[in-house]
């Protein structure tokens, strides 16, 4: 029983940062039907930007150890800078290909993913970097299972951001324009919506969420590297499909579900088979449940 709760807690925590990445995948796919392969790399860059911000803070303001100020600043900077990456991708790589055959933007996305990954590897480092503990490392017990406060924080951040995003999409004018663009870009344009701007906004929001996810994942995993976005991105994409791609609530549900499934899979099959398990889930979901659990509707 303790074991069960422990695994469940681990899975849900993993699910929280998968969810933050999956939201970007699902929004972009919902609006331009593109699998943005480079999205996992935006997540990775979020973690690196977080680390750089922290290092800068250490030299400039003498940050050290756990500090709530540092945590907030790091999260904010990551959320503010990653959109630059996402928007540049959209502007220079995807927008010129919006009317090309689908193979073209897909290959571009793949190339962009490689480019970002290798840029970090070549110009910064190929090694593992320690990520600072920005959050107090206290833990508490629930029925014999040890739960860290950080995990609760991560899940809370993911849920709050998802909630905010849902409110934004449901109630604001921009959110309405976003839904309209997802529904039918040409008609949306005729209604006076600046479709290019809305698509760029989608990338902004998605990248910011992934950036936050990157920092959280950095704290959770304790170390980061240039390659971390590849697997995380793939799994987040699986989560998005599992929940029904284009569906905000579905992405989050899928992410938590995948996190839990993966943790249990790893516990019972052995850690070295964890990724195989995740990929098998991916293939099974795509084959048998391509429209996902909650159906493939766009942010309704």
């Amino acid at each position, binding site marked *: 029983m303790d074991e069960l709760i422990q695994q469940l807690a681990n899975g849900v925590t993993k699910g929280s940062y998968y969810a933050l990445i999956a939201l970007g995948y699902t929004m972009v796919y919902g609006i331009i039907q593109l699998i943005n392969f480079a999205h996992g790399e935006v997540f990775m860059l979020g973690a690196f930007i977080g680390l750089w911000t922290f290092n800068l803070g250490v030299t400039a303001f003498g940050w050290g150890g756990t500090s709530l100020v540092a945590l907030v600043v790091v999260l904010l900077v990551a959320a503010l800078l990653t959109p630059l990456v996402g928007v540049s991708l959209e502007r220079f790589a995807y927008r010129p290909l919006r009317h*090309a055959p689908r193979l073209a933007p897909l290959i*571009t996305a793949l190339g962009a993913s490689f*480019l970002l990954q290798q840029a970090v590897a070549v110009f910064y480092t190929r090694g593992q970097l320690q990520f600072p503990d920005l959050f107090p490392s206290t833990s508490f017990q629930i029925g014999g299972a040890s739960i860290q406060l950080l995990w609760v924080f991560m899940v809370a951040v993911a849920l709050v951001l998802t909630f905010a995003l849902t409110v934004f999409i449901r109630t604001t004018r921009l959110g309405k324009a976003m839904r309209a663009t997802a529904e039918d870009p040409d008609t949306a344009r005729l209604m006076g919506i600046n479709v290019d701007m809305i698509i760029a906004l989608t990338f902004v929001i998605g990248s910011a969420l992934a950036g936050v996810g990157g920092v959280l994942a950095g704290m959770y995993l304790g170390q980061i590297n240039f390659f971390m976005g590849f697997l995380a991105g793939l799994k987040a994409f699986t989560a998005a499909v599992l929940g029904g791609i284009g569906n905000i609530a579905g992405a989050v549900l899928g992410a938590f579900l995948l996190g839990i499934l993966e943790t249990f899979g790893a516990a019972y099959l052995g850690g070295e088979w964890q990724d195989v398990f995740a990929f098998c889930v991916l293939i099974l979901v*795509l084959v048998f449940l*391509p429209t996902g659990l909650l159906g493939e509707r766009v942010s309704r």
Partner: protein
Amino acid sequence: MSASASTTVARGADRGEALARLWARVRLPLVAAPIGGLVAVAGCYLYWTLATIRVEGVPLTGFLVDFGFGGVRRWALLLAVAAVAYGGWLLLGRRPRTARQGQALARLGVGLVVVPALWMLTLITFLNADFARIGPGPWVTLAGGVLVWLAGRGLLDAPPGAAPGEWPRRSVLVDGLLVVVVELIAFAVFLMGIAVDDPGEFLGFFVAMTALGAALASLGVFKGLAGPFLRMEGFAIGLLAVLLLLFPFTQSGNTFWIQVTAQAGLFVVAALGLNIVVGSAGLLDLGYVAFFAIGAYVAALTGNALLTNVNVHIPFVLVLLVVAPVVAAIFGVLLGAPTLRLRGDYLAIVTLGFGEIVRITLNNADAVTRGPNGISSIPDPVVGGWSIGEGFTVGGLAIPGNGVYYYLELLLIAITLAVMYRLNDSRIGRAWIAVREDEVAAAAMGINTTVIKLLAFAAGAFFAGMAGAVNAHLITQVSPDSYTFSISVLILAMVVLGGLGNPPGVVLGAIILTFLPEKLREFSDIRFLVFGFALVLMMRFRPEGLLPSARRRRELRATDELAAAESQQLFDVRSGT
């Protein structure tokens, strides 16, 4: 009726005026081109560095200080002279200038800009020189290049000129001579590329050749050459085969580049296989390396390796032609059968996942695959008592073992190409194209799209398995690390760079992307960075690849400036009559 006649007249008058104005503008570019070329020539003879650059105490001879030309300047000079000659000919010749000629000039100009720019960039980033060390030479060459480029751009306003067509038959002799000369030049360029050792100089060589080729392409030379080559197809292929067979003899005992060429051959076979999947059938397969890995592991497990857990031995010829490819193809079907009903982008993800599953499984299944250590000390295959690693001797000239691998590769490429061309002309090949262009319409025409896609998958996997089997013996070991996602992307980049769907293009892409990293070992760190960048740039600016197939070009590129101008001209002619 009368209304349309009067608009025709008005249109004609407008055009007359427009032409007169155009000529006034076009004159300047005609003068600018040879001047720019001369400036670039002068730049090649100026100092390129102001001090000898030493790397670990050794002065670099590739970057000469003294007057004269050497290293990269040779290739800048080649482009500059071409610009002077062509620009001068355009200035002095009498026929009206066309946009195509402008495009050719512009491409030479771009080459003249890129060669010195790239040289300075590599000098500064990799040899830690600073701008103060760089002499006036590269800047002057660059300026000349900009002038030539501007001149070419200026001519783009001119009428496009006749669309290039295949050159008509004059006589068998002329056709034959053209074939011989072109193939000899191509072979010489290849040998020259191998002979250029210095990485900086190689970059210059590569850019110069690309720019020259691009300029010739915009003049329709390659399109024209298709005439004699198609008329003398048998002779052209025969001569090419002879030249390729002679290649190991040109290396005078040095086996390194023979080994690289053999490796390139493997990638050619693999890329041709992937081309069936991505190019012909339009299915993006991102886990293609899995089939390559499966072929390699089958060959490793059955090849009498020294360090292995399995001691099955199957004769090499059987493994190469039957076991490895068939096992790979079976896995292709196993993967494809449930997943091919998915839409294109989901399929890409599934194949990616499959590639990772295979790699991790190879890594974890210690009992059979020896896990991360892999299987090593795989001996050279023995065919009829003769180990092909021993090589052989012809008329006193010894062919080393990797030369035999090279010949083996040639054979496999020939088989693959033959199969591909036969397939492409068949019912199946046409069905692949139909499925790629419009799946719903294809299904409506009675094509069983699932079976057809499955066939493409199996065929692609088959060739990957074959290539993998040779790879295991050639590099004598297999381990999961060699078959990562990056290799899938590398092979995909070969197909995309060369030209999706066009076998000669794919061959070229595979050769370029195997040789480039070998030539630029100093920069091997950044090679995957460059591949990623190349994929993005190719899709953006030339999605049809270096050597596109005509059909694919039309599909991938809706608006080509010159093509648009051509159709406009067609419209003008029609409305005028």
